[in-house]
């Protein structure tokens, strides 16, 4: 019901490196802090100290266990926020035009003053990337920190999303994925960056860099310099110190 722009000048998004994400949740709370103070309604926490605390988060880290055919199980930490899809079903489903995709940079936003809190967009999003704030009654989602990335009041180096700035492992990268020469596009090309659930045809802008292969076969054993059983320590010592 809401139109997508035909194309966007840029495709701003995140590239998330699953090889080095240690699952520390820094991006989760840094995002929560910034977006509680900034764009739109603050992110509430219901039953904050009770039996079933439930707060609004624009970014969450999920952990999955993977059992390869051989070798021990592996844990993948998987941060997930809005992927700013090119064919964003959350936008087209919006009955009021509150959800929209920006023409200049491709960021998907919610215009909270037009949002009626119907929740259709959250149903439509296959990634579960939107959360209805229980206190404000409006839909919340990742803004790519639109109030940071162009903000003249911030030093230039800080004009990145809060999650990117804070990530201790450096697992989060921000840039224009529409520009094949941008560092993020290069990173995607070098490391085989992937779309999340490409079969859905949403064409997410955000990309994930897959974990590198783990649990290599053991290296060949070292070659003894002497047969200690036969030569004793003295023979071993002679061989060792010869080269010294």
């Amino acid at each position, binding site marked *: 019901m809401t139109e997508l722009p035909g194309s966007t000048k840029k495709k701003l998004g995140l590239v998330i490196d699953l090889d080095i994400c240690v699952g520390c949740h*820094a991006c989760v709370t840094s995002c929560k802090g910034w977006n509680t103070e900034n764009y739109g309604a603050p992110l509430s926490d219901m039953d904050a100290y009770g039996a079933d605390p439930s707060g609004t988060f624009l970014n969450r880290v999920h952990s999955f266990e993977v059992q390869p055919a051989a070798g021990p199980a592996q844990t993948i930490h998987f941060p997930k926020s809005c992927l700013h899809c090119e064919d964003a079903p959350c936008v087209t489903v919006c009955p009021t035009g509150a959800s929209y995709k920006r023409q200049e940079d491709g960021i998907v936003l919610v215009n909270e003053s037009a949002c009626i809190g119907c929740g259709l967009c959250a149903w439509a999003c296959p990634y579960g990337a939107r959360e209805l704030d229980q206190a404000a009654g409006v839909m919340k989602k990742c803004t790519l920190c639109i109030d940071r990335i162009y903000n003249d009041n911030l030093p230039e180096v800080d004009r990145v999303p809060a999650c990117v700035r804070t990530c201790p492992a450096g697992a989060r990268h921000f840039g224009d994925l529409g520009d094949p020469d941008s560092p993020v596009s290069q990173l995607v090309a070098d490391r085989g960056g992937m779309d999340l659930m490409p079969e859905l045809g949403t064409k997410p802008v955000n990309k994930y860099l897959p974990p590198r292969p783990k649990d290599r076969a053991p290296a060949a054993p070292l070659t003894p310099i002497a047969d200690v059983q036969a030569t004793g320590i003295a023979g071993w010592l002679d061989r060792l110190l010869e080269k010294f």
Partner: protein
Amino acid sequence: MSYRQPVVETSPPVSDEIRKTTCYMCACRCGINVHMKNGKVAYIEGNRDHPVNKGVLCAKGSSGIMQVTAPSRLRAPMKRVGPRGSGEFQEISWDEALETAASWLKPLRATAPEKLAFFTGRDQSQSFTSWWAQAFGTPNYAAHGGFCSVNMAAGGIYTMGGAFWEFGQPDWDHTKLFILFGVAEDHDSNPIKMGIGKIKSRGAKVIGINPIRSGYNAVADDWYGVTPGADGLLILAIIHELLKAGKIDTRYLAQWTNAPCLVNAEEGPEKGLLLRDPDGKLLVIDRATGQPAPFDRKGVRPDLGATWNGHRTVFQHLAERYLSADYAPETVAARVGITAERIRGLAAEIARVAFDEAIELAQPWTDFRGERHETMPGRPVSFHAMRGISAHSNGFQTARALHVLQILIGSVETPGGFRFKPPYPKPFDAHPKPHSKVTPGAPLDGPHLGYPTGPEHLALKPDGSPARIDKAFSWENPMSAHGLMHMVISNAHAGDPYRIDTLLLYMANMAWNSSMNTRQVIEMLTDTGADGEYVIPRIIYSDAYSSEMVAYADLILPDTTYLERHDCISLLDRPICEADAAADAIRWPVIEPDRDVRGFQSVLLDLGARLGLPGMVAEDGQPKYKDYGDYIVRHERRPGVGPLAGFRGNGESVGRGAPNPDQMKRYIDNGGFFMAHVPHEAAYYKPWNAGYQDWAVGMAFYDKPSPYLFSIWSEPMRRFQLAAEGHGTRQPPDHLRARLMMAMDPLPIWYSPFGDEDAADYPIHALTQRPMAMYHSWGTQNAWLRQIHGRNPLYLPGSIWKEHGFKDGDWARVTSPHGSITVPVALHGGLNENTIWTWNAIGKRKGTWALEPEAPEATKGFLLNHLIHELLPPKGDGLRWANSDPVTGQAAWFDLRVKIERVDPQEQTLPDFPEIKSPVPKAPRNRLWGAEK
């Protein structure tokens, strides 16, 4: 244009002001920018200029706003008005609180200062709190290192003059292989994440050796799921392989370690000590002459293989031990839980990177012998470890084994390896010795804690009994450099070695997650004698929050949050240095408390003045220091040397200089920290680098250059072993001789953790670890963090899951030789097959931390502590044997052995404790930022 979209304000004002201070959401001590709006904290981010975190900030730090606004914050001093444990308190004035404390402590100081036991937990002001305790005159002071990671610290100091974390770091810029043995993720937090991210991004490899594959181990390229407590055996098997193949750095060993020193072979009181010349200098055999020479003579070429008059080198002793088939991979594989093939492969990988991928920096330097080197060669293999290997009863020797491994490949203080952070390196004999001589009405005879080099430094009374309540520096654990906080309540309750009057605790949740054997500790805190009085008569506690411990104290001195206080992260204590810079930092009140609370250090100064303690009273009888901030600036430990190294004197002096009244302001203006860079020629080889030694003297780390050799062979340990063999006048009790002879071996050994004794019926190892997003108990009250870690199932490996037929949603009863818990379980495939684990200290007692009693932390959360006793099972000899490392006394948390049985889903974890009446008002139901402003 047909497409219409709203106009968004993309350049809103960010904040009114940024105040830069130091985080305290864990032990990592990152720099933070606190954004202020309308006088309130609006947002916290990392400080890009800060040496520790360089702009990044973890989940805890980024949630600081929920810590400083937590409803669990204590509001005013309180005195207990109900029985201990009831939570019945009455708020009182600070004057009443301080007069009460002074009235309790004054008579103790005049007659028996040792009857005050003062122990601190997550204290970052130990140079101050220890100074206060010394002035009071009690020998009973320590911080929490004894139940944390003293094995790692002491193992490193005795071996090489420093350990991991606060003492040093991997050379992240050059390392090609980083090997992580079991770790606590806040020791340290962000630097490890930054380092792992940095090296993996450039293709370097990370190897995780840990029974649990989570966190850092989840991103490791290779994972070795070692059996808990067997790390030392694995390390010695790697050493076996490296030695056999000659893949060790003989040049490094000959020049920089005591490997070429001669071990006295003559029977008698000197046997096993190293030969020295008449000036007391270690002797080596010079390859040029074949004759003995002092180790530091210019041009000396120490011979690793020498034998002189029957005395063999340390190196020969080492080779003889570790080349033994006892350490062959196939011998140890089953016990270690890793196949011989993989152990050999790991050794080969270490050797390949250390020797085939060696690096060399074009940086000339001069060593302490006066020899100039044109380059700095390096072995780019680095290691890190913390509690995972050290919280075992064999942890000290395991930590030493790991340090010896690093030394054998020549990677310590060389490019790509492990690098010390100033003021380290600092050898064991440059540290203070323990002091425990009590004089009523006077200060202690010296600092409490230190590094004994032989039996003469033990803290014993004339009758040979322990001088300290925790029995630190006694024959039970001679090298207990951080004390044994975990034994204080148990010993005080037992009157072993003696009774105390007042227990003063700071930031230590001893009635809950910081104690082993929590239930019985609670009973000890509330136990009364025949006279109806508490066995531990008085307890004073300072905490900022409504922790479990609060209910068990008689007097509460409420502390501030970290944004409301002064602190110094001092070079006198545990600074925030990086390998390339000495650095220290402050906290300052970026907001004022909205409660009647005071920083504990300021309170101690006030109390000290009321007690007339030396150094705390001015000549006119008034308190010498207005508050802790005043102390930080004006106090001098030695002339010209104070808590902060930067901006001294006229503001330009570094390290040494008169107190500068503007110093605090200069720190604030500088972002809350000070940094002095290590000169380039001093960047590596620091223990032997003349350039570094001279710089360190200028920085006041030492008063003269103090180069030294790494101690592969530990003479202090051998001195204790000699005593156990019957040499010397200070003799251990007979029941400890055999254990001392075994545990104080001067070369690293491995022995089964004490927890393995009589554990045949308890086949499973049980561990805890801290989540990166939660600083154990502290994080629970944080409304954001508890949504991330509000539950802590017991994680089981597939083998145990299948064997017992567990299904999702099941619970289990877990039983140790000491106790039993009933808890929810979950499957975790990435585990050692005999290991189960859970997150540390998510479980909370009902009524604490301003949580609802129905909170999952109190109904589904739990502690493993209930399964762990502070004592070993009785041996029938009537003695109380601590469940601790026999060298350092470190709490052996991870020796725990259990058995498990499936039970149906439950509503409440067991044991369940009665609800405590909350000393703080009920928390608001929701946190709604707009409505709260």
